[in-house]
C-alpha cells in the first residue's frame, strides 16, 4: 500500500522580488514582486497570455531557473535547484526513446532497491491507466499516452508538488478533455499539491481550486480567483461560465488588452 504522506506535505511559499533574462536585445524583466502561498494538496492553475512569466514562475519552483532575487520554500526548507520533492511535466512528453515505459517511469528511481523500484513503477503505470503498455516503447504510444507516461514519471518520485507546464497544449481537443479528467482523478488519488500552467481559461476553471491570473511586462500576479464549484464540474453550468467570463474579462476586458504582451517577448520554450 503506497503511503502518500499527505500529512507531511509542506506549504509552498514563493517570494520573487525580481527575475530577469539578459539577451541580445537587452534585459527583460520576466517576473517582479511575486508573493504567493500554495497550500498542501491544493490544485492551483496559472493562466495568462504568452510572455506573462507563468512558465518562468513554474520553472523557478521546479528549480530549473536558479538565478533570481527571492526565495521559494517548501515547508521549512528552502528550495535550491531541482529535487525529487517536485515532479515536472512539460508540454512535450520528453520521454527517452530508447527506454520502455517501465524504464522511463523509473528513470529517477535508480537509487532504490530493485523490488521496491519495480513496485513503485508498476503502481504509477497502473494509476495512469497504462498497465497493458508497460513494456512498450514511446514511439508505439499516442500523444495522450506519452503524456500519461510523463505524468507517471513525475509522480514516481513521490513528489510533494506536481508541476505541469501546459501539459495538454499539444494534444487534440478531445484528448485534452480526457486528460483533464485524468489529472483530476490522479490528483484525487495522490493528493499531491498541483500547480498547472495553462493558456486555456476553461481548463483552469475546470481543474483548479484557485486560479492565478498573470499579466506580462513585467510578469506579476494580477489577481487570484478561488473556484468554489464542486467536482466533477460541468463546463456548461451557469456558475462555471460566470467564473470563466470573469477571468476572460480580466485578461481581455476594458484595459485588458494592455495585459497581453507585445511582440518583444522571448519564447519560453
Amino acid at each position, binding site marked *: 500500500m503506497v503511503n502518500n504522506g499527505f500529512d507531511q506535505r509542506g506549504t509552498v511559499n514563493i517570494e520573487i522580488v525580481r527575475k530577469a533574462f539578459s539577451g541580445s536585445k537587452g534585459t527583460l524583466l520576466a517576473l517582479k514582486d511575486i508573493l504567493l502561498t500554495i497550500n498542501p494538496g491544493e490544485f492551483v492553475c496559472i493562466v495568462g497570455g504568452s510572455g506573462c512569466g507563468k512558465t518562468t514562475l513554474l520553472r523557478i519552483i521546479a528549480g530549473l531557473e536558479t538565478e533570481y532575487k527571492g526565495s521559494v520554500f517548501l515547508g521549512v526548507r528552502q528550495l535550491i535547484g*531541482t529535487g525529487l520533492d517536485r515532479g515536472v511535466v512539460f508540454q512535450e512528453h520528453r520521454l*527517452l*526513446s*530508447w527506454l520502455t515505459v517501465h524504464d522511463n517511469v523509473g528513470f529517477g528511481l535508480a537509487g532504490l532497491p530493485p523490488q521496491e523500484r519495480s513496485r513503485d513503477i508498476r503502481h504509477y503505470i497502473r494509476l495512469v491507466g497504462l498497465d497493458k503498455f508497460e513494456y512498450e516503447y514511446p514511439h508505439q504510444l499516442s500523444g495522450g499516452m506519452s503524456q500519461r507516461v510523463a505524468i507517471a514519471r513525475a509522480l514516481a518520485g513521490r513528489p510533494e508538488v506536481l508541476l505541469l507546464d501546459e501539459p495538454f497544449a499539444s494534444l487534440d481537443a478531445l484528448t485534452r478533455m480526457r486528460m483533464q479528467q485524468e489529472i483530476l482523478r490522479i490528483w484525487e488519488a495522490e493528493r499531491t499539491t498541483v500547480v498547472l500552467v495553462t493558456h486555456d481559461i476553461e481548463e483552469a476553471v475546470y481543474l483548479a481550486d484557485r486560479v492565478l491570473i498573470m499579466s506580462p511586462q513585467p510578469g506579476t500576479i494580477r489577481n487570484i480567483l478561488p473556484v468554489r464549484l464542486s467536482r466533477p464540474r460541468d463546463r456548461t453550468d451557469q456558475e462555471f461560465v460566470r467564473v470563466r467570463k470573469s477571468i476572460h474579462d480580466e485578461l481581455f476586458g476594458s484595459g485588458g488588452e494592455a495585459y497581453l504582451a507585445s511582440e518583444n517577448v522571448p519564447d519560453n520554450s
Partner: protein
Amino acid sequence: MSTAEQNRRLEWKDATAGSTPKPPDNLRRIYLLDRLLGWIIPLSVVLVWELLARLGILPPNWLPAPTVVGKTIYQLAVAGDLLKHAGTTIARVAIGFLLGASAGTLFGAITGYLPVARKLLDPTLQALRSVPSIAWVPLFLLWLGIDETSKIALISVGAFFPVYLNLSVAMRHVDPKLLEVGKLYRLSSFQMVRRLILPAALPEYIVGLRSGLGLAWMFVVAAELLGASSGIGYLMVDGEMTGRAAIILASVILFAVFGKASDWMMNAAGRRLLGHRAR
C-alpha cells in the same frame, strides 16, 4: 507503390499501435516483390554480358564472360589463394578499422562533451580531414615502409574521421529538453553522459561506424594497389601486370562481396542495438 497500398500500410500501422505484430501476408508479398524488382537490372546485365562474350563480340582479354570470371574465382579457392589473399585483406581492414574507430570514438567523445577540448582539437582534426584520402598513401609508405604498418595506419585514418565526426556532433546536439530531464533528477556529469547523452547519440554514432568501415575498405584498396605482396589488391595488380582481365574482375567482385558483407553485418548489429527506437 500505389496510393491505395500506401494507405493500407499506414492503416495497418495505426491499427496496431501499441503492439508489434508481423505484417499481413498480402503486405509481405508487396515487400518481396519490391525487392525482387531491384534484381532485374543486374541479372539482365549479367545475361547480356555472357551472351556478348559467347558470341565473341567482347574480346576475351578485355572483358571476359561472367562464367570465366566465376571459374577464376573457383580456381583461386581450390588453390588456397582465395583464403590467403582475402584473409589478408580482411584482417587488415579489421585491425585498421578497430584502431581507427577506437581513436575516433575517444576523440569524438572528448570533443563532444568538453567544449574546451572541441575548441582545441577540432580545428586541427578538420584540417587533417580535408586532405584527400589517397594523398595520405605515398606519405605513409614513405614514413612507415611497405609492410603492414603503413597499410594498417592508412586504414585507421580512413576509419577515424567519420566515427570522430559523427560521435562529436551527435553528442553536442542532444536535445537540450532531454538534458533538462536529467537536471530534474540531479544526475552527475558521468550519469548524464552514460544515461542520456550516449544513448541519444547512438544512432548517429552507428552511422559513423558504417561510414568508417566503408572508408576502411577504400583505403585498403589504395594501400594494396600501391605496394603489397598479398591481398586482393595485390591480386588485382598482379592480374594487370600479367594481362589477365579475369583476375582483375575477380578481385573487383571479391572486394564488392566482402565489403558488402561487412557492411551488412554492421548494419544488422546496428539494427539490433537500435531496434526498439522509432524509425
